[in-house]
């Protein structure tokens, strides 16, 4: 038996190794191309490793995308923080202070996270034009905060559901009111949920494209995802810069994933509305 088990292991590792290699293939391509100097880029040698490492592509990418990288940072930080806070307090009310009709209202809120945003896009833009936020990062922040409400509320609500009611009741007997119960008891318990929501919002807002491309038309205001696509639209594509740009756009979320992968997975699974 042990010998058979060994063979099984080897087979398993081989299969996993082959699949992993094919999953990593595009990443190999991304790295290899981005580190080549422009003159070494040709279709016949595109799978070769760089003969010499060149930062030319990254320099060009930073020059072109630097301001947009900054825009993405200025967008993602306030949008993430505000929507996390709102999600938390909403989650508290929808899990612990159930006013009449809370459940049905919650379903209506939840529907908002599944809609194709195309179906609200045009009126949204007109609205942002009316309040003079169209084309600005402020407009994008507002948009992400509002359309982030359903998912952030959901994650916190599910998390707070598992906090025993007795714990909150004990506090209220001590004469603590609803808000101080929230701030004193629930917030300190919320760290794991906060991490999940922050990661989720950060990744989604950073990676988002549809709102970004339609709400910001001025290239100096655009987040990095839009700038990256526009980079490809310009005359002859400099593939080393293009790939370096893709990597620059990907690094923040990849870093979050590498450092906090466990919470990232939890957010992913929470996003599938566990019942």
């Amino acid at each position, binding site marked *: 038996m042990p010998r058979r088990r060994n063979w099984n292991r080897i087979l398993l590792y081989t299969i996993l190794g082959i699949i992993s290699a094919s999953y990593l293939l595009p990443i190999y391509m991304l790295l290899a191309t981005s580190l080549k100097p422009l003159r070494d880029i040709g279709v016949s040698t595109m799978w070769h490793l760089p003969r010499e490492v060149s930062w030319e592509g990254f320099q060009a990418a930073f020059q072109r995308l630097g301001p947009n990288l900054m825009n993405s940072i200025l967008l993602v930080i306030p949008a993430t923080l505000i929507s996390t806070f*709102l999600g938390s307090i909403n989650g508290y009310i929808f899990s612990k202070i159930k006013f009449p009709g809370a459940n049905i209202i919650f379903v209506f809120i939840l529907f908002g996270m599944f809609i*194709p945003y*195309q179906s609200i896009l045009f*009126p949204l833009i007109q609205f942002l034009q009316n309040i003079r936020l169209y084309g600005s990062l402020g407009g994008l922040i507002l948009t992400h905060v509002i359309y982030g409400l359903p998912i952030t509320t959901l994650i916190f609500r599910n998390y707070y559901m598992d906090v025993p009611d007795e714990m909150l009741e004990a506090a209220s007997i001590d004469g603590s009111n609803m808000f101080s119960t929230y701030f004193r008891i629930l917030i300190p318990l919320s760290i794991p949920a906060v991490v999940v929501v922050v990661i989720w919002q950060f990744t989604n807002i950073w990676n988002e*494209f549809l709102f970004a491309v339609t709400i910001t038309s001025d290239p100096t205001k655009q987040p990095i995802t839009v700038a990256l*696509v526009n980079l490809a639209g310009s005359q002859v594509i400099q593939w080393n810069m293009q*790939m370096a740009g893709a990597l620059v756009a990907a690094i923040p979320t990849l870093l979050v994933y590498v450092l906090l992968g466990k919470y990232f997975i939890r957010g992913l699974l929470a996003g599938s509305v566990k019942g």
Partner: protein
Amino acid sequence: MRKRKNKLLGFFVVAPTIVAIGIFVYGFISWTIRASTANWNTFARLASGVYESVGFRNYERLFQDPRFQTDLWNTLFFTLFFLTGCLIMGIFLAILLDQKLKGSRIFQNIFLFPMALSFVVTGTVWNWVFMPGTLPGNPAGINVFFGLFGLQSLQWRWFTSTDSIGNFNFALIPVIIAAVWQLSGYTMAMYLAGLRSIPDTLTEAARVDGASAIQTFWKIKFPLLKPITLSAMIILGHISLKIFDLVYAMTGSGPNNVTDVPAIYMFELTFRSNRYSLGSAISVIMLLMVAIVIVPYLLSTMRKEA
């Protein structure tokens, strides 16, 4: 007494959210539906601000439009193959990783990291990978890769191909591969969570009764994974019905719209050619498609909870 006060107070705390969602989701959807029945198909007509109902004329025009027909077929086939691909890869990888191998964490991370990337980034990279070049003399991308191994027969025009079987455009295949690459890890994570929640005692009992590993899987584990399959289908399905960024960054509409999808057509109509009402009609159709998938799911999860 105090509880009632709290409930009232609680309602006031969430009231801004309710109002915001009411306006930004439901109000705006109603506005889009109204716009889809107007004749705002030039900028001047929109700017005039006059609403004149044309009934369902925009919808009729869309369904007679060959490009929109192609979009619907593309959505159907994309959804079908993307779902199948993700589910098969997802459960296969989950089973492999559930074997308590050393280092399975590393593999899990490799399969899952694409999920952390933007569709725009993956679209850019996959565009470079599947760039066909000029065949047969001057291949590019993955065609070069096949050439290195003497697999010239596998070289073809990928997302620039205009070949099809019936209404299935082959050009969608590379887009489907990219989408499966990005989301199969997610499906794997869902299945893995499911497999790990099955108590060992259950599988142990089956083993004692003389069931083989394969029997244990099909007779015991697989039925328990059904709800996960359903959730995954709904989540992935609604993603594929509204897919936009990946296609936009990777291929665009393609020759003869072979890789066009409703979201791209909507984007071009609304933001490139000022045909707001037609664009709105597409987004209403997209919303309906998503609602058919999502509403029963939402209602059933909520009922389970209550």
